[in-house]
């Protein structure tokens, strides 16, 4: 579904991505992990077309994303830090996004808006919201358009345990219905029941790209965090 072919990106001297190759298929749930500054967000932003790679290409359903924008209708993106126009209310932000994407939307998925209770605070202005509530708005927006690919950049950072549980259940549900999910996270324990594949990045390179069952059988560990550390040590 998404194929990343040999892309590189440098920010002046710093090499953020160094000839990356990945293939993501429909129905997979992929965790993208790695230390801070290892290029996870840059990779995601390249797929979204927010960062333009220096070389290489990205294919979405077989078509290159360069100079194309329609493919983004298939993606729901939840940014690490959701930033929205300050003097709009939550309701206005949702209405605006619906309005802008209207032509391409078949059915809306407002489950998260209800489960997070966002519909009760529709007239709150964005600048008055706490970080966690902003995250909820970002999450609800990512799922709103029933996109077939979900890209979530540290989705549960800043959410309270209850909300993060709601979000995780939603992720599992959407993944089961055949959507491709791409998650970056630092909290390995919460990824355990969420993901089917794992990509480990370091210094702009991919160190590991395996399915979870492979990973567990190779390392002989049941817990994801233990399995990863065992693999990292043996490398």
């Amino acid at each position, binding site marked *: 579904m998404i194929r990343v072919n040999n892309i590189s990106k440098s920010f002046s001297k710093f090499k953020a991505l160094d000839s990356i190759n990945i293939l993501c298929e429909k129905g997979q749930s992929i965790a993208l992990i790695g230390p801070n500054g290892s290029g996870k967000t840059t990779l995601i932003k390249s797929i979204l077309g927010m960062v333009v790679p220096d070389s290489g290409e990205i294919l979405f359903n077989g078509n290159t994303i360069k100079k194309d*924008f*329609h493919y983004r209708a298939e993606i729901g993106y939840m940014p690490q830090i959701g930033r929205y126009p300050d003097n709009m209310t939550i309701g206005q932000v949702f209405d605006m996004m619906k309005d802008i994407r209207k032509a391409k939307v078949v059915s809306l998925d407002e489950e998260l808006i209800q489960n997070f209770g966002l519909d009760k605070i529709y007239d709150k202005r964005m600048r008055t919201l706490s970080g966690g509530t902003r995250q909820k708005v970002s999450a609800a927006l990512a799922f709103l358009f029933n996109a077939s690919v979900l890209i979530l950049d540290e989705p549960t950072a800043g959410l309270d345990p209850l909300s993060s549980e709601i979000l995780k259940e939603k992720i599992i549900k959407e993944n089961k219905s055949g959507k491709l999910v791409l998650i970056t996270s630092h909290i390995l324990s919460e990824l355990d029941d969420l993901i089917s594949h794992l990509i480990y990045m370091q210094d702009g390179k991919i160190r590991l790209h395996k399915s979870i069952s492979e990973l567990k059988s190779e390392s002989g560990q049941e817990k994801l965090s233990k399995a990863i550390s065992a693999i990292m040590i043996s490398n």
Partner: protein
Amino acid sequence: MNKVFKYIVIDILRNKTVLFYTLFLMVVSFTLFSFEENTAKGLLSLLNIILFIVPLISIIFSTIYIYNCSEFIELLICQPLKRKYIWLSLFNGLAASLSFAFLIGCGIPILIYEPTATGLIMILTGCLLSVIFVAISMLGTVSTRDKAKGIGKAILLWLYFALIFDGLILFLLFQFSEYPLEKLMMVISGFNPIDLSRITVLLRLDVSALMGYTGAVFKDFFGTTFGFIISLFVLSLWVIIPLIISTKKFQTKDL
């Protein structure tokens, strides 16, 4: 085009700055016209203020607005929208609201006191100046990431066009006063939209008789319809060229 444009205009209107700008222009225009007995004199004083204030407000307001808009732009970029479309909507929103503010603030008083061809030309150049400085500010913001640096750049650009450029010209004229520079001056004036607007309007007023030989040469060219069309063309180049460059840059910008 309409949807993003609509949200940008609503957002600009919600931010009261443009409203105050309109009121300010209106108060200044009415005061000047009622102070001077001769409306032509009023028009001249107004021209000097417009040539100072309109570029300043247009460039500073647009620069700050675009920086504050960065969240909104990021949000739009990951939607199925063309980058060019987002950038041009932003330009249209800013250009439309600032020229509309000028139309209301200065256009109405001018039409009341001086409903002549000269008045209309002044309204037209005022609107063009607003749009030109929106385009210039967009070129400045797309190439500068840091907000403080970007605003500093905008102020410097305005200083350059409003003051420094004239100083350089004066220096040049004094240094080469032995040579016939009139023709060259006409070309050079095209490099500063503020000067070009000043000349275009000034030559329609009686005071141009006081400008000596250079004034006569200028009047020979800019005073004709052909010269007027040329100056409008050069002014619109000041919109189109910065806009094309900034759009190109925005299309490959990392966010």
